[in-house]
């Protein structure tokens, strides 16, 4: 198998995506889950860059890191807390 160093880097980042997704399900604190989601989106943007699609990387960085996390923080601050 002719795997280069970049391939192992992509595989490590994909593994981080799996870990972050599972962590978001099991974390009970909502703000911590939003922070983990921010890390998930950052790794996802790096994967897009690794796959030679910088267009999607910019959109992911703006829409994911900026917009979604910002909106989730606003929703967290304005909604009432369960449990």
């Amino acid at each position, binding site marked *: 198998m002719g795997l280069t160093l970049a391939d192992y880097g992509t595989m490590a980042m994909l593994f981080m995506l799996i870990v972050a997704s599972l962590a978001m399900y099991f974390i009970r604190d909502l703000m911590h889950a939003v922070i983990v989601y921010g890390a998930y989106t950052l790794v996802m943007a790096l994967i897009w860059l690794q796959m030679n699609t910088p*267009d999607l990387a*910019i*959109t992911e960085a*703006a*829409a994911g890191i*900026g917009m979604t996390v*910002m*909106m989730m923080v*606003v929703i967290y601050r*304005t909604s009432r807390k369960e449990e």
Partner: protein
Amino acid sequence: MKDFVLRRVVALLLPFIQMFGIYVIMHGHTSPGGAFAGGMVVGLGVIGFSTVFGIEQGKTKMPEHVTTITESYGTLWYILMGLVGIFKGLPFLANKLAVDVGVPGELTSGGLIGLIGVGVGIRVASTMVTLFFTMMEEEA
């Protein structure tokens, strides 16, 4: 928020964030990015500012009557640019504004695409800011 470092950094970074967003909008047809991503960056600059400095001061940057006008006229600009093709006897959004569309890779190449991107960018930026203000006001 009262944090000195946060306030100073956001105040210093705001023009650079907006400049990068405008750059991404203007170069949407020659480089990665586009009107949607660039407009989102421009909107995020204002959103970050009003998160740190408070919603009242953020509304002095982008008042409600300004966002209403930019939202509506961004869409109207897109339709007008699309109708250029129809006036020339071609399909909607046909890219025939200039006779020569320029050298590929330059800013003036692409004909109508860059002009459409400006309207889309303005529309996306004002929509994001309006969404944020509407959601924050329900905190009360």
